Each structure stands twice: as structure tokens, then as C-alpha cells.
């Protein structure tokens, strides 16, 4: 799949923002007044900034409000609802903390649940795609949610939780890669089922429909060099989990904490780029791609 920067930005930063909102909603850290304002400002800049960047890949962003109508079938529509509900609930909860020095506990918990639900609905947009076997797995929501709360714990300064959740996210990431690498071959879709010519003999794409490129090839037949993918996975893992863990285990220092956050964000960004770039869409089979995958 084509790794669109606007979508990678969106899922990385809004994931972190909603992760921070989860912890703020649960009362960790239990801040009020101006320090609560600072925490909420960071969370809203990340979450809302991410959401706004996601509209940049739309052909008609001016019609974006129509995306609220089809929540009964569409995960993208459900995501829009969850995001708006989460942001409104957490804004009310945050206003209580900042201006009234009052914690509305239940409101915070419900807001935290909707923040998690937003990230879950984002992940289901990808996990529902049967056409991309690497994504069509319960590991996809696990990957998005584990990184969301690990990043949230890191931003919220919850060191113990951050250490545990980063480790969990790292393990899920390893499984996502390992199992994802076999998903296409195990999906049962190959050039023989795509063309239904397999009972005659071995099928090979002979000539594409056009000499030039097209939307389908640009969007779905993106191929990343295997050796680069391995290097990028190592870089992502080091930046996302290993370096922040080391920095957290050192004696606490605000610069180390900032460095841990920056490293984690860069790692998640790399991992999310790979999430798209490595994803193989079955339509590539019609263009002769992926035939060596099996």
C-alpha cells in the first residue's frame, strides 16, 4: 500500500494524543489548574492535529461532515463519532480540572473509554480489509491499542506503566511482523484464484493493461525492498521501545524523559510507515506482483 504521509501523521500523533487522554481521564497524573491545562493542551494538539492531517488525503475534505452518517456499517464513520464524543467529553472533564479544580471521575473514565474506542475504530478500518491479508488480523487492533497506551503512559509521565506497556507493545510488534510476513501466502488468494486459470497451468502476468502507470498501481502495488524493510524494522524497534526503556530505567531526569518521548514518536512513525509500505493488496496479483510471496 502507498504510505501516505498524512495518514501516517494522523495515526501516529492522534494515537499518542488519545493515549494521553486515556491516562488523564483515569486521573494519572492527578493534575489540576495550569499543569492540567498544559497536559490537556498537548493531548489536544496531538489528537486534533492528527485528525486534521487525516483530511489532507481526501479528494473532497469540504464534504467530511457526511462521514458521520454511515456508522451502522462503516468503521471510518464510527471513528469519526468516537473521536468527536471523546474530545467533547474530555474537554468538559478537562475544563472541570483546569478552571474548577474539580475531578468528575465518571466523566473522565467514560472519556478514557471513548479515547480508546477511537483508536480501536481506527485500527478496525485496516483490520477489516480482507484484501490486505497482513492487516486482516486481531493483531492490527492489538498493535494500534498497545502503542496508543504505551505512548500515553510515556507522555503522562507514568514511568512504571510506561515500562510495562512499552514491553507489551514491543512483543505485539514482533508478532505483528512475524505473523504478517506469512499472511499473504496463507490467505488462499493467489494469481490462480484471481484469474481462475490455474487449472490449465502455471499463470504468469504477460502484459499489463496499459504501458503507463495508474491509480491502482500507485495506491496498492507499492513494493519496498526487503533488505531495507529489515533495517527499518530494527530502527523502529530500537527507537520505539528499546531506547525509551533504557532512558526510563536511568535515574529520572526531565531531559531523558523528553528524549524518550522523541525517540518513541520517531520509532512509532517508522513502524507506521512500514505498516503501510509492507502491506500487500491482493489486486497486485492482477499486475503480476506478489507472485513470489507463496
Amino acid at each position: 500500500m502507498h504510505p501516505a504521509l498524512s495518514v501516517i501523521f494522523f495515526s501516529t500523533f492522534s494515537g499518542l494524543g488519545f493515549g494521553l487522554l486515556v491516562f488523564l481521564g483515569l486521573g494519572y497524573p492527578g493534575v489540576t489548574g495550569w499543569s492540567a491545562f498544559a497536559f490537556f493542551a498537548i493531548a489536544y494538539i496531538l489528537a486534533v492535529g492528527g485528525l486534521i492531517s487525516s483530511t489532507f488525503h481526501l479528494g473532497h475534505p469540504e464534504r467530511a461532515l457526511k462521514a458521520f452518517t454511515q456508522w451502522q456499517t462503516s468503521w471510518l464513520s464510527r471513528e469519526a463519532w468516537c473521536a468527536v464524543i471523546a474530545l467533547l467529553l474530555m474537554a468538559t472533564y478537562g475544563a472541570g480540572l483546569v478552571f474548577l479544580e474539580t475531578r468528575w471521575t465518571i466523566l473522565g473514565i467514560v472519556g478514557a473509554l471513548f479515547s480508546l474506542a477511537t483508536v480501536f475504530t481506527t485500527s478496525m478500518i485496516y483490520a477489516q480489509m480482507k484484501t490486505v491479508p497482513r492487516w486482516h488480523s486481531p493483531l492490527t487492533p492489538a498493535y494500534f491499542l498497545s502503542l496508543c497506551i504505551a505512548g500515553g503512559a510515556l507522555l503522562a509521565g507514568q514511568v512504571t506503566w510506561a515500562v510495562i506497556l512499552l514491553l507489551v507493545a514491543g512483543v505485539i510488534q514482533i508478532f505483528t511482523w512475524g505473523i504478517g510476513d506469512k499472511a499473504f501466502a496463507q490467505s488462499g488468494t493467489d494469481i490462480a484464484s484471481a484469474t481462475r486459470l490455474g487449472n490449465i497451468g502455471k499463470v504468469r502476468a504477460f502484459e499489463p493493461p496499459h504501458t503507463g502507470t495508474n491509480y491502482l498501481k500507485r495506491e496498492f502495488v507499492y513494493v519496498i525492498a526487503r533488505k531495507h524493510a529489515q533495517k527499518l524494522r530494527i530502527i523502529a524497534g530500537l527507537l520505539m521501545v528499546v531506547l525509551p526503556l533504557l532512558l526510563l530505567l536511568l535515574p529520572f531526569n526531565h531531559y531523558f524523559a523528553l528524549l524518550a518521548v522523541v525517540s518513541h514518536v520517531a520509532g512509532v512513525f517508522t513502524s507506521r510507515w512500514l505498516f503501510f509500505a509492507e502491506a500487500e493488496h491482493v489486486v497486485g496479483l492482477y499486475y503480476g506482483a506478489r507472485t513470489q510471496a507463496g
Partner: protein
Amino acid sequence: MTQLPARTDKKLGLVIDLDTCVGCHACVISCKGWNTENYGAPLSDQDPYGANPSGTFLNRVHSYEVQPNQGEAQLIHFPKSCLHCEDAPCVTVCPTGASYKRTEDGIVLVNESDCIGCGLCAWACPYGAREMDVAEGVMKKCTLCVDRIYNENLPEIDRQPACVRTCPAGARHFGDLGDPDSAVSKLVADRGGVDLMPEQGTKPVNQYLPPRPKDRLAAASAEDIDILAPFLEPVAQEATGFLGWLDRTLEKL
């Protein structure tokens, strides 16, 4: 409305004969022509006369080589457009309700004025049937020429999809695949028509007729004794005259 209808009154679709298709791409051109000039946003081209041309097409013809275990390789031309699936995954993912499947005839359409151009429907389609138009920013797809098949301003013979009407080989057939007595349903039954990617669970309405077995002249002549064969033996076994001299001289060298 992106909920799929429980059932449709008709299942209009195409039957594509892979045995007959000659790969001339006439259906590609007639589709592009009709759908650029009629319903919806035109099918734009980018850099059409330049170094890197590309454009929106609703119907494309691939070509595949199939190598049997024994015998010669075969070249099979493979036209592909929207299959108007019964369980169309492109419809249910649409967040705005722009994509829908019609209850009356099963045609899958896009209401372009509701489309936000998010591209999710194209992601959900395993067949590559949907293409985002770069100039318009909306999703384009085969309409089964909905503006031809019911169009009473056209002579009756023209009330079929442009690709079917134009095919010089008769490789494309249009009709109601939900009616077992229709000509297309009988054709599918006779020829053993198949679904593309059945494991994806989309239940495509369009059907593909597999190529018939090719003639096997070499194998046949080895088995059958042809009474004319003795008359077809080469008359001169040994070269004579100038060529004979040349042959003998070169042999000596």
C-alpha cells in the same frame, strides 16, 4: 445508504468469455468514451501526450500466459471491470453513503456528490474495479452503463453496456444473472462460468467463462493413421545437382 440490500430483484451483470476475447481493447476505449461524455465526472487523463501518461479507466484488459505441464503456453486476454458483487465490501466501508447497491437491479453505484474521496472503497475491492479520478477527487467505477441500458432515447439494440455493444468478438454478454432462464445464466451453466477470487467472499455477479481446451494436432497425428500421409512424404531424400555438390564438398572439409 451503505447497508447492502438483503436481496435484489435482478442481478444485472456481465459474462466474459475468455475463450473468445481477442484482446483488442475495443471495450476499454468504448467504455472510456461513453463514461467520459455521459453520467458523472469525466474520466480524466494526466499528462496524456507526455512522458508519463496515466488516466482513469473503468475497464482494463490484462493478458496472462498460462503454461500447462505439457504442451504449448497459452495467451489469455482478461478484461476486468466491476463485478457488481452481491456482498460488495466496497459499499459497506463507505463512511458517507455515497456507495450503494441498487435493490431493483443489483448495480453498484457511487453518488459522486456525496463522495469525499477517502479511497477506502478502492482498498476494500479485491479486483481493482474502483479508481479515484485525480482531476475530480471522486471515486469512479463501472455503472454497467446505467444511462444506456434503461435509456429509451437509444434504439433498443444499443440498450446494453458500451463494452458489450462494441465487442467485435462477442466475448461480452449482458443480462440478468439472477434469472436461471436468462440467456446469460444458460451460457454460464453450459460453459462452467466461475467467480474471480471466490475465497474473498464477495459473491461477484459477473461471471468468467474459462478458455476451452486447445486443439492438440501434434498429439492427434501421432495416434491417427492418415491415409494421405504416404503422399506427403518428401519426394527427394538426397540432395542432387548444385546443392548436392555443395553438400558433399562441405562434408569433405
